[in-house]
Every structure is written in C-alpha cells, then in structure tokens.
C-alpha cells in the first residue's frame, strides 16, 4: 500500500524528449490508468516508475522516498508485461515463486504464498505446467500471480490484455478489477484501449505526445473533456466534432448548418468546435431539433444501432450542412439507409472547444 508522486518527470532518448514534464499524484490503493495513442509516452512513464527506464529529470517518489536511482529490484514493485514474460523453462509454480526465492524467503512461506495466489487466480490445477502448455488467458493469470505473490507496494500493468481475444479481454478486465478491489494495492495500468480505461479505472490519465491532457474519474472525462483530444479519445463511438462559430445563440457550422444553442452556451467570436456524443443524438421527435439527417449506413448491434449520417440542415431548418456524423440509437427500431430523419438533441449536452487551442470552452 503506497502513494506515488510523479514530479515533473521528463524522458529523452538521445536528445529527443518523449515525456515532457509530467506530474501526477497517485493515492494509496488507487487504480490509475494511463491511456493514450501509441507513442504518447504512457509506457515510457510506466517503465520509469518500474526502474526499467532511467529518468532524465524530475522525481518519482514512492511513500516519500525518491526512487529515481534505485534499481528495479530495490523498488518493491511488481509488473505485468504485455508479452507476460513468463520464464518458459519454469513451471507455473516456479514462475510464481521466483521472486520470493530470490529474496531468500523460507520454503514454507514460498509454498504458502504461491498456493494463496494460485487460489485467488484459480491456478491451483496448473501449478506444475509450463507456460507453453497454457492458454493465453491462463498465461495472463500466471503473470498476475507472479506479481501478487510477493505482495508488492505497487502493481504496474503494461497493456496486459492486448494479446487476448475480445471475449477473454472482457473477462480478464473484470478479473483484474476484482483483484484490485480485493487486494487494494496501488495500481498503475497502461492501455491504449479507452474502453478498458473507462471500465476499470478509479482515475484515468489521458496522455498525448508526452504530456498529460487530462486526469480525472472516467465520468469526469466523459462528461467534461478538457480538450478536443480527450473528447475524441474517450467514449465509443467517439464524439462528433463539427467546426464552426457561435452566432446569435446558435451554432453555425462551416458548411452552413445552423443549430440552436442553450442560453448558457459560451459567447465567443473565435472559431469553435461543437462536440456532441453519438448517444446524445436522438432520431425522431425527442428533444429540441439538432437537424435533418440522411442515414448513410445502418449498423444494428442488437441492443443499440449505430447510424452513420450526413447532416442536411441545421435545427432551424435553414439549408447547409453536409457534415458526417454518427448517431447511437438505443431505441429498438429498424432504420433504413438512404432515408431522411429528424434528429433531436439536448443543447445542454453540447461541448464547445476553442478551434485553435483545442481547450474546452465553458
């Protein structure tokens, strides 16, 4: 159980800076997920916490101790790798016992701890097998077993689910979350999958190009994305973003569609981006008018239907538009492609961003 303070940490590879002064406080027992596209620096940051990557400047502090210069083995941190990195020549038991054995723990303790971890992760029947004889999901669990067996201060996960198929990924996601709820060990988890981030995290840290874009609870990020990047990254399907400006309490898109706004919409003469989530758009008569749309593609998914549509005109009926938008309908209805529908939306659910800086406008 530990707190981590990441204080203005930078990382350069041969003069090329990839992490630009990141600061983050992680509370005791918190499950923090670093999420972002490939190359955003999230894995590098994780590896700096682990000690597998040196820190160019700044500090990583665990429980008030600066660990910058400590080798990984002195940090008391366990890590689950994307490739699992199980020792192929060792049985599951030996894989899990390895760290305890190196630490010189008595054999009785090792056996007891391995058994306890194996029971938590349902690995008891697999203890004498080698990694090659295990399925992907089982290997994943062994990798976690190896991490929890020594009861470390901190768990690090580096994209642990990306080698699993979709069904297993969903299952392991809840297993990891359950494990965290049970052990309450401070956890830092890296993924590029925003669904993983949304479903598992106490707090999500969205990274982009070596900087933190926003850190907050999943619902914070979903409801109040601080930037265009976060708006586009969080949520699936991603938010519709329409460029335009605000004029006379209406949004005028670059293509000429005019969408009425609520009274509390920001007032600015600068170019803005209107963000509206696909699930905030409703086909038919519900809510104030967003506009007329032509449905291009209909993707029924059972409980919901994803519609790719083109905005024909704004809510006030004036012609214009032409923007492509996505609508997520949770109403059980059969939609037909190439039909024109009215789309409603609550202007209170609109997001506005400065088109130049990308920052959120309130």
């Amino acid at each position, binding site marked *: 159980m530990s707190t981590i303070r990441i204080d203005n940490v930078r990382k350069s590879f041969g003069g090329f800076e990839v992490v630009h002064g990141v600061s983050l406080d992680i509370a005791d027992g918190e499950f923090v997920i670093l999420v972002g596209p490939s190359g955003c620096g999230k894995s590098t940051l994780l590896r700096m916490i*682990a*000690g*597998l990557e040196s820190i160019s400047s700044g500090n990583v502090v665990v429980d008030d101790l600066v660990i910058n210069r400590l*080798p*990984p*083995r002195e940090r008391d*941190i*366990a*890590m689950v*790798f*994307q*490739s699992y*990195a*199980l*020792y*192929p*020549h*060792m049985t599951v038991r030996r894989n899990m016992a*390895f*760290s305890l054995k*190196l*630490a010189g723990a008595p054999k009785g303790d090792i056996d007891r701890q391995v058994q306890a971890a194996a029971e938590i992760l349902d690995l008891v029947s697999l203890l004498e097998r*080698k990694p090659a004889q295990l399925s992907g999901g089982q290997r994943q669990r062994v990798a976690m077993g*190896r991490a929890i067996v020594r009861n470390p201060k901190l768990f690090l996960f580096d994209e642990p689910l990306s080698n699993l198929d979709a069904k297993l990924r969903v299952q392991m996601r809840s297993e990891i979350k359950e494990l965290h709820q049970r052990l309450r060990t401070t956890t830092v988890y890296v993924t590029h999958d925003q669904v993983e981030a949304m479903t598992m995290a106490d707090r999500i840290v969205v990274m982009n190009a070596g900087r933190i874009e926003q850190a907050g609870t999943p619902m914070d990020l979903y409801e109040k994305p601080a930037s265009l990047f976060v708006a586009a990254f969080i949520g699936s399907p991603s938010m519709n973003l329409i460029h335009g400006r605000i004029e006379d309490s209406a949004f005028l898109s670059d293509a000429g569609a005019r969408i009425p706004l609520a009274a509390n919409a920001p007032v600015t003469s600068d170019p803005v981006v209107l963000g509206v989530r696909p699930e905030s758009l409703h086909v038919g008569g519900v809510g104030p008018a967003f506009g007329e749309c032509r449905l291009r593609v209909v993707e029924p998914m059972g409980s919901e239907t994803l519609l790719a549509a083109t905005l024909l005109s704004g809510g006030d009926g004036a012609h214009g538009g032409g923007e492509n938008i996505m609508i997520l309908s949770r109403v059980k209805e059969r939609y037909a492609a190439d039909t024109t529908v009215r789309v409603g939306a609550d202007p209170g659910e609109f997001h506005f961003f400065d088109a130049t800086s990308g920052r959120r406008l309130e």
Partner: protein
Amino acid sequence: MNEKNIFCYLMVAPALLVTALLGIYPMLASMVMSFQSYDLLAGQRDTIEWVGFENYRTILADDRFLQTISQTVIFTILAVGIVVSMGLFLAQVVNAKFRGRAVVRTLIFSPWFVPPVVASAIWMWLLQTERSPINAVLRDLGWTSGNIRFLTDPETWGPFSIPMMSVVAVRVWNGLPFVIIFLLAGLQSIPKSLYEAADMDGAGILQKFRHVTLPMLRPVLMVLLALLFMNGFGHFEMNYIMTQGGPRNLTNVLAVWSYQEGFAFFRFDNAAAASGIILAMTSVICAIYLRLQYKDDLR
C-alpha cells in the same frame, strides 16, 4: 512422387552426393579396412586378409596410443570448456550496447579470418622458445628469468604440460569467434522482456545469467557442445602443425596418431582402427545429444 517432391530431392541431391562420396564412403571404407591387415611395407598381396579385431587389440596394447586417447579427451574437454566459458562471457559483451562496440566486435571476431593452418604458423613463431615475443615481454616485465619452452618443454604435471596448454590456448583462440557468434545468435533470440521480468523479480546480474540466460541458451548450448566435442575428438591440424604430437607424445591426439601411423609407418590398418575409435567416441557424444534432445522434447 509429385513435382514439388522431385524438386526438393533435386535440391538436396548435390549435397547428398558430395557427402556420400567424400564423407560416408571413406568412412565406411576406413571401417572395413580396420578389420583387415593392410601394411603397405609388407608389399602387395592378392587376397584380402581379414583379421577381425586384431588391429584394435594391437593399438590398444600400445601405451603411446592409450596416452593419446586420454590426451584427446583432455584436450577436448579443456578446449571446449575454456572456449565455451569465454564464449559465454564475450557473447554477452558483444551483445551489450556500448561505445566502441564495433571495434571490440571486430577484434573479437578477427581470429576467425585466419585459417587454422596460418594461425598455427603464426603461433608457432609467437611461441618459438628463442625468438618468442611473448617470452621477451615476460622477461621485460620481470615475470620470468629464462625462456619458457612453450611447445617443447617435456615436463609434465599429471596429464598436463606446457606444450599441451599452449596448443589448447591456440585452439581456443582460433575457435572462439565461432562459439561467440553461435552463442550471440542464441542470446539475441532471448526476449528482452524476460530480463526485465527478472529485474522486477529482484534478480541481479549473476542470477539473471543463471536463471534466464543459461536455461534459454540450453538448446543452442547443446548443439554447440555436441559440435565442439565431435570436432574436438577428431581435431587434427593445429596439433599436427604446431608440434606433430610432441614432445614425447605430450600433445598427440587420435587424428594425428592415426595420420602418423598411416603415412609415416604405412600401417593403414592400425590407422583405420584408430579412426574407428574416434568414430566410437563421436558416436557417444551424438547419442548423448540425441537422448537429451529427446528428453527435452518430451518435457
């Protein structure tokens, strides 16, 4: 047989033919000869005289031959042991990233560019008692008072002698690059994440070597050891060129003994019997290797 199969056979045919003609046929002919009386000095005979195991009995009754067998084993164990230990260390050095790696790599691999015969000639000069630059350096440093007779000192310590150590050193020097490249290929196939996992598990350098590198290199090491032992038991050129087996048979090995028996004493039957013993020794190594590999496959 379909077209693809015919093509495959055609592709391996030249290699098979060469192996059969230059490898398998002489080996079989030599084995057959080891059961015949074949003394060139005795003149030509019309009939082949079969003598059963007589040739083997003759050479095994020869103390000089028995000494040669044990020396062949000692030479091989020493050379293989040293070359593999140094190879393991240097392969890690070559594998590491550091400034000047290219230079170090070139230096380490350079003995490979020297054919064994040339290497032997160079080292004969370097180890020549009166003119050896090594002796000169040792004397200048004040470490020795007289010249060390690297290739001719007949003094022994059990089975060991200075000429034996000198020849072993040259064999190691010449064989090292091959071993390093072999092991380097093995090292590079070990995923980096295993070392990182070991780092996180708390392993130091030696523990990583013991618990990650060695087990992961096991298949490569097994092939390498089998090759080195088989080559080692049949090694000829360096021992022959540098010392002809001397002084007092101290650096003699089976292949050199067999050659001398055939081409110096014209006893091809005894030479063939000595070759038969080399074949038996390499077969043992081969059998051990196959058995270990079979066990690994079962696991």
